[in-house]
């Protein structure tokens, strides 16, 4: 049973729920419609947030989540197109801003008014290909493209600013011809405000920096790099749920996973 509960605590969950519920014109009936809005999860390791959301909004059967990591299905640690709603596979960082740029170029060519959203990790911004694509998207004036940076201030092992400092992210993208905004990525109201104005400026790609905390609301795991990719025991999950709703701090004893 622990396998089914193995989880990555995704700081983008609120963002993803907001996008699918409020922002994107995509639902289980228009998944093949060329006019739909697109969401690309470039930081593919946050895919559990998509699986859960997709089950809730009916892209996949809830039952199917039980196939997590099973060989009879495709619900593994990174996104792939065998799951309805996943637009493209990811896992290798620094790819989907380019792919989304291609989709955005085509939507412009076909004079569509749809939106193309791509979620990037802040650590992912280390990859040179992100900046290559940012340069190209700026040059091609893709104001139908919205990149969202999940600014959780951590990468796999360390705080971003202690390794390769990324700040100021906003100035960097603006210098590449983008228009940027920041918001609290855990607040539906703030997200709503950030996404209300679109495009932020005509003729410029949009960047939204969503400020998040990994493990937000769960003091026992918040800002603990060893607890974001973990197999929790059933008891721990029960206690974490209570903790989330104001219960006492969970004492975690399950083995930590060193994945990367």
């Amino acid at each position: 049973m622990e396998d089914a509960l193995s989880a990555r605590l995704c700081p983008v969950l609120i963002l993803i729920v907001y996008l699918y519920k409020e922002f994107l014109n995509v639902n289980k009936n228009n998944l093949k419609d060329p006019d739909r809005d697109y969401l690309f999860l470039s930081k593919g390791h946050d895919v559990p947030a998509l699986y859960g959301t997709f089950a809730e909004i009916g892209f996949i059967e809830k039952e199917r989540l039980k196939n997590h990591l099973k060989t009879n299905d495709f619900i593994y640690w990174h996104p792939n197109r065998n799951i309805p709603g996943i637009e493209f596979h990811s896992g290798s960082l620094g790819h989907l801003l380019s792919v989304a740029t291609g989709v955005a170029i085509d939507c412009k060519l076909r004079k569509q008014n749809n939106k193309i959203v791509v979620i990037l990790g802040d650590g992912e911004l280390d990859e040179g290909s992100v900046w290559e694509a940012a340069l190209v998207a700026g040059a091609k004036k893709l104001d139908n493209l919205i990149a969202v940076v999940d600014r959780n201030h951590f990468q796999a092992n360390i705080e971003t600013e202690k390794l390769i400092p990324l700040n100021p992210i906003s100035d960097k993208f603006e210098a590449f011809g983008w228009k940027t905004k920041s918001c609290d990525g855990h607040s539906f109201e703030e997200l709503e405000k950030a996404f209300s104005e679109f495009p932020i400026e005509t003729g410029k790609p949009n960047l939204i920096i969503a400020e998040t905390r990994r493990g937000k609301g769960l003091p026992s795991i918040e800002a603990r790099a060893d607890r974001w990719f973990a197999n929790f025991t059933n008891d721990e999950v029960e206690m974490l749920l209570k903790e989330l709703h104001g219960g006492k701090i969970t004492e975690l004893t399950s083995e930590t996973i060193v994945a990367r």
Partner: protein
Amino acid sequence: MTYEEILKDLVDKDERFMILTAENRAAIRNLPDKIGDRFIDTGITEQTMVGVAAGLALRGRIPVAHALASFLTMRAFEFIRTDVGIGNLPVKLVGGFSGFLSEANGPTHQAIEDVSIMRGIPNVNVFCPADEEDMLIGLRKVMESPEPFYIRYNNIKPVYKHSEKFEIGKAEVVSEGKDVTIIVYGVLFGQAVEAKEILEKKGLSVGLINLRTVKPVDEEAILNAAVNSKLLVTLEDHFITGGLYSITAELFLRNKIMCDVLPIALKDSWFKPALLQDVLEYEGFTGKKIADRIFNYK
């Protein structure tokens, strides 16, 4: 029709075709004015160009993406493998100045492992035409295939009238020979024709196979040559590892065939940068030198 004219024709008649480049316009210089927004130059960004091509393919397009072969296949390798290969998207990757065609550019520009690394990606096919005419004969079928392709662009003037009959996975069997069969792909085809003539003057019966597509490869043509000729020669402007010699070895091992094979390829070093004819002389790949090596085998 020229290469450009065929691309323009495809773009005009089929809305799926898009022409991309990472600022390498040698082969498509005149297209921007003629096809407007169906032409996309992403700048010197091989990775992004391949990612963009994948995005366009997701939208139903057939992107034809151009860059120098070494940077296309190596700088952008992981994008090709991950986005085009895993995605099995109909992206056509056109590598310019591959193999000896990089001439005097030096080792940075020498794509002489491109066939090896491209054929190693599941779903990705490889087309290595012998010369400009051979390329144009096969171009439409390759472009219209629903599968990804890597194309070794080759605008060398033809020395031989090629068969108009082109099929992906079928070699052009120029001749069959009892003594020796030269199997070749790409730009060295002309030298192979010359070597064949020299050897025939010396009384040998010489077969010549122009592979055209290296993946899928025409296994039957190679196996027939192995059975009917005393000696096989694999001839390529490529490292000896991973290219035609390796393909032949894999094929023979799988079919339990033992025979004499003389590989003529680049052995573990980059070639001397110079103009093509001088490269051929220096590295021993002229028709005459190839013929000598074959004649003196054993």
